C-alpha cells in the first residue's frame, strides 16, 4: 500500500488571520471600491456642473450690462428682414417652377428685383452698425479683463501675498459712461433703420397691388399669408424699437431661474464667438432624442422579433446560427461602425432615396448624407444584441407550466406565444428595450461621425421627414468641444452640465429598467 500523501494544513494561522478571511475581505473591499468610485464620479460631475448656473447668470448679466442685448435688439429688424427675403424667395422660386415658361410676369420679376435690392440695403445697414458692434466688443473685453484680474488678486490675497496682489492694476469699466456712448451711437443709427423701414413699406404696397391682381393664381396661400404677416410685424418692430431700447435698463439683474431656463430651453448653442456665446440645450437634446427614437424604431422590432423566433419557433440548428451571430454584433467596435456609416451607408441611403419608386416616402430624396437616418440605422445595429439577449432571457424565464397549460387546453402554438408567453415576459422585454435605449443615448463615436453635426432645432413640423435632417447630439457635442475648451471656463462648465443631464437620463432609464425587472422576477 502506498504511503498516503501528506498535505500541509492550508489554514495558516497568524493569530486571527486566515486565508478565508483574506479572500472575503478582498472581495468585499473591491465591491466597496466600486461603489466609492461611482459616488466620486457623481460628486465630481455635480460639483463641476453646478458651478455653471451662477456663472451663466453672470454671463447673461454682462451681456446686458455691456450693451450686447441692446445692440441685438437694434439689429433685430435686419435679422427678421433677412428671414422675410428667404421666405419670399422660396415662394417666388416655387411659383416659377410650377408655372414654367408662361410665368413671364414682368411685375412678379420686378417685385423679386425689389426684394433683392432691399436685401442689399439690409447688408449696407449691417455694415453701418459696425461702430456699435465694435464698441460693445471692446467694453466686454475690458470688463472680462477687469474681472479676471480681480479674481487673480482675490486668490493672491487669500494666499497671503499682499505685495503681488497690489501689483495687479484693475481698470474697472465705467458702465455708466460706456452706456451713454453706446446710446449716442444707437441714436445715430436710427435713420438707417428708418430707411430700411421705408423701403419695406414700398415693397409692402407693391406686393399688395400684385396680390390684388394675381392673388387667385397663387398656391400655398398659408405661406403667402405668413409672409404678409411677417412684413407687418417687421414694419411694426422698425417703429417700436427706439422706444424699447430707450426703456431698456442695462443694469437690471438676471434672475437665477432665467439663467436656468435659458440653458434648458435655449435654442442656440454658439461657442467661441466673437460676439456672444449662447449655451442652450434644446437643439442637441432633441437631436439626441431623435437619433434614439430612430434607433429604437428599428432595433425593437428586429430584436424582440428575433428573440421570440429564436426562443419559440427556431429549430436547434437555426438557434445555433442566429444567436451567436447577433451576439457577435456587440463585439464590433463603434468606431468601425461609424467609419462604415460615413464611407458606405450614408451614400447608399442617399442613392436609394433618389429612386422614383420611393419618392412617396416623406423626406426622400435625401439631401444630406449624414443625418438622423444614417446614425439611427447604425445605432439600431449596435443596440440590437442588447435588446435581443435580454428579451430572449425574459422569454426564456417564463415558467414552462404556462406554456404547457396553454397547449394542453387546446391553444395553438401561435396563440400560446401571443397571448400567454409575451404578456408574461412583457416587463422583461420592456426592461431590455430600456437598457438598449441607455446604450444608444450614451453612444458617442457613431453620432459624432454620422449624424451631421448641425446645431439647430430640427424642423419637427415636417413630420417624419425630420429623420433625414442632420442633427447634433449631446454626446457628440461633448466629444467635439472638450479637446480645446479652457479648463474652468463657462464653456467647460456648460459641457459638464450636459454630462450631468446625460447622467440623469441614464440614471432614470436604469432605475426604470431595474424596477421593471424586479417586478417581473417576483
Amino acid at each position, binding site marked *: 500500500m502506498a504511503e498516503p500523501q501528506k498535505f500541509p494544513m492550508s489554514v495558516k494561522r497568524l493569530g486571527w488571520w486566515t486565508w478565508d478571511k483574506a479572500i472575503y475581505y478582498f472581495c468585499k473591499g473591491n465591491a466597496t471600491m466600486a461603489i466609492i468610485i461611482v459616488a466620486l464620479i457623481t460628486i465630481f460631475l455635480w460639483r463641476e456642473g453646478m458651478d455653471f448656473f451662477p456663472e451663466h447668470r453672470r454671463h447673461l448679466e454682462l451681456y446686458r450690462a455691456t450693451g450686447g442685448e441692446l445692440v441685438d435688439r437694434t439689429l433685430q429688424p435686419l435679422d427678421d428682414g433677412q428671414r422675410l*427675403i*428667404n421666405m419670399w*424667395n422660396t415662394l417666388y422660386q416655387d411659383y416659377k417652377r410650377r408655372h414654367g415658361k408662361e410665368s413671364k410676369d414682368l411685375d412678379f420679376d420686378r417685385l423679386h428685383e425689389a426684394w433683392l435690392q432691399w436685401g442689399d440695403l439690409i447688408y449696407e445697414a449691417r455694415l453701418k452698425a459696425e461702430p456699435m458692434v465694435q464698441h460693445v466688443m471692446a467694453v466686454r473685453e475690458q470688463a472680462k479683463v477687469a474681472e479676471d484680474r480681480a479674481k487673480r488678486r482675490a486668490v493672491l490675497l487669500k494666499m497671503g501675498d499682499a505685495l503681488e496682489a497690489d501689483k495687479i492694476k484693475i481698470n474697472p469699466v465705467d458702465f455708466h459712461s460706456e452706456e451713454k456712448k453706446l446710446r449716442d451711437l444707437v441714436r445715430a443709427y436710427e435713420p438707417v433703420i428708418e430707411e430700411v423701414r421705408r423701403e419695406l413699406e414700398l415693397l409692402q404696397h407693391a406686393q399688395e397691388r400684385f396680390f390684388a391682381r394675381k392673388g387667385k393664381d397663387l398656391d400655398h396661400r398659408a405661406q403667402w399669408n405668413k409672409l404678409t404677416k411677417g412684413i407687418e410685424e417687421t414694419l411694426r418692430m422698425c417703429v417700436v424699437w427706439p422706444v424699447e431700447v430707450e426703456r431698456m435698463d442695462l443694469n437690471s439683474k438676471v434672475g437665477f431661474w432665467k439663467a436656468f431656463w435659458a440653458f434648458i430651453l435655449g435654442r442656440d448653442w454658439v461657442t467661441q464667438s466673437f460676439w456672444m456665446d449662447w449655451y442652450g440645450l434644446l437643439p442637441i437634446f432633441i437631436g439626441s432624442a431623435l437619433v434614439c427614437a430612430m434607433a429604437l424604431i428599428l432595433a425593437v422590432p428586429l430584436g424582440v422579433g428575433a428573440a421570440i423566433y429564436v426562443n419559440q419557433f427556431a429549430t436547434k440548428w437555426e438557434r445555433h446560427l442566429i444567436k451567436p451571430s447577433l451576439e457577435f454584433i456587440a463585439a464590433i467596435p463603434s468606431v468601425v461602425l461609424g467609419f462604415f456609416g460615413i464611407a458606405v451607408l450614408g451614400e447608399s441611403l442617399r442613392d436609394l432615396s433618389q429612386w422614383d419608386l420611393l419618392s412617396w416616402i416623406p423626406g426622400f430624396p435625401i*439631401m444630406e448624407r449624414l443625418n438622423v437616418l444614417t446614425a439611427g440605422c447604425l445605432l439600431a445595429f449596435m443596440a440590437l444584441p442588447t435588446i435581443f439577449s435580454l428579451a430572449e432571457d425574459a422569454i426564456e424565464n417564463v415558467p414552462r407550466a404556462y406554456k404547457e397549460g396553454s397547449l394542453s387546453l387546446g391553444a395553438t402554438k401561435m396563440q400560446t406565444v401571443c397571448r400567454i408567453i409575451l404578456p408574461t415576459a412583457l416587463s422583461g422585454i420592456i426592461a431590455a428595450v430600456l437598457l438598449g435605449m441607455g446604450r444608444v443615448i450614451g453612444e458617442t463615436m457613431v453620432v459624432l461621425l454620422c449624424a451631421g*453635426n448641425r446645431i439647430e432645432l430640427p424642423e419637427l413640423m415636417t413630420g417624419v421627414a425630420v429623420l433625414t435632417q442632420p442633427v447634433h447630439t449631446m454626446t457628440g457635442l461633448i466629444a467635439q468641444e472638450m479637446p480645446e475648451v479652457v479648463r474652468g471656463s463657462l464653456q467647460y462648465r456648460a459641457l459638464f452640465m450636459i454630462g450631468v443631464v446625460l447622467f440623469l437620463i441614464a440614471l432614470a432609464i436604469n432605475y426604470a429598467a431595474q424596477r421593471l425587472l424586479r417586478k417581473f422576477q417576483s
Partner: protein
Amino acid sequence: MLLARILILISMVIWAQETSARQNLVIKGSDTLGAKMVPLLAEAFKSNRKDISFEIAAEGSTSGIAALIDKTCDLAMSSRSVKPQEESVALRRGVVFHEIIVAFDALCVIVNEKNPLYELKLKDVERIFSGDIRDWSLIGGGVGRISIYTRNTSSGTYQDWKELAMRKRDYARFSQKLAGNEQIAAEVANNPRGIGYVGMAYVNLGGIRVMPIIKPDGMRVTPSIESIQSGAWPYARPTYFYTNGPPMGAAKDFIDFVLGPIGQRIVQLAGFVPAIQFN
C-alpha cells in the same frame, strides 16, 4: 550564473544608452499643418538625422498651444496666432511663446463641380456662411437650399474664417460642423448644393471646384502663389510654429531645416505658400 547576469546587465546598460541618445521631438497642434505638411517635413528630416524620432499629434491649433503651455510638447503647430488670453495663461506658467512663420496658407471656398456658379462676390461669401442667404437662387445659382460645411470649434481654421471672411459674425445655425479638411472636401464633392472652405492643399479632390472671388473693386482673384504673396487673395493667413522660448536642440535643427531651401520646397509641394522664397 554570475557571469550571465553581469553580461545581461552590461548589455542592458548599452541598450539604454543607445535609446537615450535618440531624441524624441513631440509636435502637437493644427490639423491644417499636421495632416500632410509636417509629416512630410519630418520624413525628409529623419532621412538625414536618424537620431531624432517624431511624435506628431494633429488635434487642432488650440490643443497644440494648450499642450505647449502644459509643457507636454516641444513644438506647437498653429494655423492662427496666439490669443492674448493664452499668452497671459502661459506667462503665469512660465512659458514664453516664440513665434516662427513657416508658411502661408490660403483658405479657398469650394463648391461642387455641378454648381452653375463660377465666381462669388466677397460680400456674398459672408452672406452665405452667416446664413443671410439660404438658397442658391438668391445669388444666381440654381434653385436649392445651401448646405454649409464648416470645421468645428477645436479648429483654428474655424476661427480664422470668421475673421477673414465673415467680419467676425457667427456661422449660420444650419451649418454642419465637420472634423477636418478632407471631410469637408468629401461632403462638398458629394452634395451638389454644398459649399465649404478648405486649405489650399486640399482642393485637388475630384468633384469640387475652387471659387474665384470678386473683390469690391471688381478685381477677380484666384488662389495662387502670386496672389497670396502679393496679398491679393483675401483669405491668406500665415501658419506658425511656436516654441517655449527660442528653439534649442532637436527643435532648433528641425526648424532650421524647415526654413531652409529643402524644407520650403516641401512646404510648396504640400500645397502651401513658402514663407521664404528661395530661387
